[in-house]
C-alpha cells in the first residue's frame, strides 16, 4: 500500500510565545558562539524547538559614536553657540542648551590623548566635567558666557546616538610600504609585518541575521551595558557588499564604563570602544540556520594601507577563523595577525544579554521595519579637484648613473634646474638620490669619489597618478623638498618639488 507522506511542516514560533517564556522564566537562550554546534547536532528544525533566543555581541572601536546632552537652562539664560566639555569641543548648533559631543573630537589642551570618547567615559564613571559655553546674546537668551561643572546626573538628558556601529564585518589591514603606519587599524609594521583585524566574527550581530529577518528599526538591544534600540541602518550601510551597519541609540545614564571605553590610536585620534549586542529570536529555521554562522563562514579582504588612496589594493581574503589563528599567509610569508576589537568583551556582551533575558529583565521587541537589504556605499562626489603629480611634475628631469664621479655630478646639478639629482641604474631604474648638500659635504670632507658612495639609497618617490596632496605629505613627513616621480617599473620620469607645490597653491589663492 502506498503511503502518502505529509509535507514537512517548518518548525516555527512567534515572538510573543518567546516573550511569554521570558516572563515565566522558561526561555532557552544560548550565545551565537554555542549555536553552530546545536544546529549541527539537532538540525535547524530541532534547533528551533530547542532554542528561543541567540544572543550576539561585539566590542570594538566605533568612531561614529556620540551623545546628545541637555545641560538645562542657566539664569540668565544662554543660547550656546560653541561649547567645550573638559576642553573638548561639542557641537552647539542645536537649540540653546543641547550639545552633541562626538567620540573622535580631540581636546584643545591634551590633543588626541583625551577626546570626546574620554569625556563620555568620565561622565559614565560619575566624574565631574568642566563645561564652558559661548553664547550669541539675544533678547531671550541674553547671557554671553557660561562656566560650570556637571556630573552625568546633573544633565536633563544624556542620549547616546551612534550613527554607525556594529559593522557586519571589517576589512583587515596590512602595510606594504617601507614605513610604520599609525592608523585607526593600529600600528601597521612595514613590509607586511603584521595584519590587524576587527570584529567579533561568530558573535557579530548582523552576521547572525544578514537577511534582516529580525534586525530592524525599533529592535531592543544591548548598548554600552544598558538597553538601547536600533534606530535604523547606520551611515555607510552597505548590505549588498556585506558591510551593513547599525544606527543605535540609548540612555547614557543607564550605561556602564565596563562597556564604554575611551581609547586613542596613536597619531590617529580618540575613539570609543562600544559594546553592542542584539538578541535574535529563533522564530523559524531560517533564523536557526543564519545564527549557525561560524568564523570560517565570514571572510574579509586583507587591504594594503600602504597605499594611501580610497581604493586600497586587496591582497587576499581571509576568514575570521584564519585571522584568529594568529597567522595568515601573504605572498608566501607567514604574517602574524592580531585583533583590535575584543573577543573577550564581545563574549561578555553576549553573555550579559543572555543573563538579562534569562532573568526576565529584557523582552524582545518586534521590528518596525527591516533594515534595507539593498544599497552600497558610494564614494564622495568631488567637485573641486586638486591635480595629480603627473599634471604638475617637471618632465625635463636630469639623471645620472651610479658610476660617475662627484665632480661630474656637481657639473650636472649646476646645469640643471634642481637641487636634487636622481641616480639611476643602466636601465633607468631609481637607485638613489644626491643633493647639492651631499656634494658640498663630500667636497668639504675631501671625499671626491663616485656618487654611489655618497648618495642616499632610501629614496622617497611619487607616482604620476598620485594626488599632489599625497606627494606633499610624503615631503612633509620626511622633511624633504623634492621627490623623483617614477613609473610602475621604478623608472624616473619626472621630478616634483616643494616649489612646484607652493606655486600651485599661490596660484590658486590669487585666483
Amino acid at each position, binding site marked *: 500500500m502506498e503511503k502518502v507522506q505529509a509535507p514537512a511542516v517548518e518548525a516555527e514560533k512567534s515572538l510573543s510565545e518567546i516573550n511569554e517564556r521570558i516572563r515565566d522564566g522558561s526561555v532557552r537562550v544560548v550565545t551565537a558562539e554555542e549555536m553552530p554546534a546545536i544546529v549541527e547536532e539537532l538540525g535547524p528544525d530541532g534547533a528551533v524547538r530547542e532554542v528561543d533566543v541567540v544572543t550576539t555581541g561585539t566590542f570594538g572601536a566605533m568612531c561614529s559614536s556620540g551623545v546628545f546632552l541637555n545641560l538645562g537652562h542657566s539664569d540668565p539664560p544662554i543660547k550656546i553657540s560653541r561649547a567645550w566639555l573638559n576642553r573638548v569641543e561639542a557641537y552647539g548648533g542645536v537649540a540653546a542648551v543641547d550639545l552633541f559631543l562626538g567620540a573622535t573630537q580631540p581636546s584643545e589642551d591634551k590633543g588626541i590623548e583625551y577626546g570626546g570618547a574620554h569625556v563620555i567615559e568620565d561622565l559614565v564613571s560619575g566624574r565631574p566635567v568642566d563645561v564652558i559655553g559661548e553664547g550669541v546674546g539675544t533678547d531671550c537668551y541674553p547671557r554671553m558666557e557660561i562656566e560650570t561643572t556637571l556630573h552625568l546626573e546633573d544633565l536633563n538628558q544624556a542620549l547616546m546616538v551612534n550613527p554607525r556601529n556594529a559593522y557586519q564585518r571589517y576589512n583587515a589591514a596590512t602595510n606594504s610600504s617601507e614605513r610604520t603606519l599609525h592608523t585607526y587599524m593600529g600600528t601597521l609594521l612595514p613590509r607586511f*609585518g603584521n595584519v590587524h583585524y576587527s570584529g567579533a566574527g561568530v558573535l557579530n550581530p548582523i552576521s547572525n541575521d544578514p537577511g534582516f529577518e529580525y534586525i530592524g528599526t525599533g529592535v531592543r538591544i544591548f548598548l554600552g551595558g544598558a538597553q538601547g534600540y536600533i534606530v535604523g541602518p547606520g551611515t555607510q550601510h552597505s548590505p549588498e557588499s556585506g558591510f551593513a551597519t547599525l544606527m543605535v541609540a540609548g540612555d547614557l545614564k543607564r550605561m556602564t564604563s565596563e562597556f564604554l571605553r575611551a581609547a586613542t*590610536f596613536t597619531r590617529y585620534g580618540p575613539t570609543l570602544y562600544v559594546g553592542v549586542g542584539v538578541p535574535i529570536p529563533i522564530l523559524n529555521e531560517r533564523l536557526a540556520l543564519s545564527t549557525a554562522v561560524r568564523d570560517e563562514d565570514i571572510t574579509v579582504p586583507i587591504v594594503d594601507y600602504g597605499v594611501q588612496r580610497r581604493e586600497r589594493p586587496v591582497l587576499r581574503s581571509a576568514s575570521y577563523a584564519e585571522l584568529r589563528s594568529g597567522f595568515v599567509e601573504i605572498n608566501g610569508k607567514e604574517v602574524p595577525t*592580531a585583533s*583590535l576589537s575584543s573577543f573577550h568583551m564581545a563574549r561578555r556582551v553576549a553573555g550579559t544579554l543572555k543573563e538579562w533575558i534569562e532573568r526576565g529583565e529584557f523582552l524582545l521587541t518586534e521590528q518596525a521595519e527591516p533594515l534595507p537589504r539593498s544599497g552600497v556605499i558610494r564614494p564622495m562626489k568631488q567637485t573641486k579637484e586638486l591635480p595629480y603629480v603627473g599634471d604638475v611634475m617637471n618632465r625635463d628631469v636630469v639623471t645620472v648613473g651610479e658610476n660617475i664621479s662627484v665632480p661630474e655630478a656637481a657639473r650636472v646639478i649646476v646645469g640643471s634646474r634642481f637641487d636634487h639629482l636622481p641616480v639611476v641604474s643602466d636601465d633607468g631604474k631609481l637607485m638613489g638620490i644626491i643633493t647639492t648638500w651631499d656634494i658640498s659635504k663630500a667636497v668639504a670632507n675631501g671625499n671626491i669619489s663616485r656618487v654611489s658612495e655618497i648618495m642616499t639609497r632610501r629614496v622617497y618617490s611619487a607616482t604620476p597618478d598620485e594626488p599632489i596632496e599625497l606627494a606633499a605629505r610624503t615631503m612633509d613627513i620626511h622633511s624633504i623638498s623634492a621627490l623623483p616621480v617614477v613609473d610602475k617599473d621604478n623608472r624616473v620620469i619626472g621630478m616634483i618639488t616643494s616649489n612646484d607645490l607652493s606655486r600651485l597653491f599661490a596660484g590658486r589663492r590669487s585666483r
Partner: protein
Amino acid sequence: MKLMLRVAPGIVRKPLIASVILETGALINIERASIDAVSGEIVLDVSDDKCRQVKDAFERRGVDVILLEIPVMRNEEECVHCGACIAICPTGTFRFDDWKVVTDPGKCIQCGACVTACPHRALQLVLR
C-alpha cells in the same frame, strides 16, 4: 634573564660588552641598544646561571645594571583584551589565552612599541 645597562658618557665608547664576554665567557644576546654621543641604554639577554657574574662584571666597569624582572606592566583596569599589542611585539611578549591577553614579561626588551600601540594606554614600561 634580561639586564638593562645604563652606560655613562665617560665610558660609552669603551668595548664594554666585548670585555665582559671575554671575562665571563657568557653567551650574551644584545636585544636592543640605543647609543649616542653622550650615553647608552642597552638591553641584554643572559642565561640565568651567568646572570650574576655578568652583572658584577659590568658594575665593576662603572655601568648601572638593572635586572628586568617585570619590564612591562599591564593595567588590568584599562586593558580590554583587544590584542593590539600582540603582533607588533618583536619578541612575542603578549598572547591570547582563551581570548584574554596574557603577558610573558621574560620576553620583553623594553622597545616600547606596545606602549604606543595600546589604544587603551594600559601598558607601561617599568623604569623608563
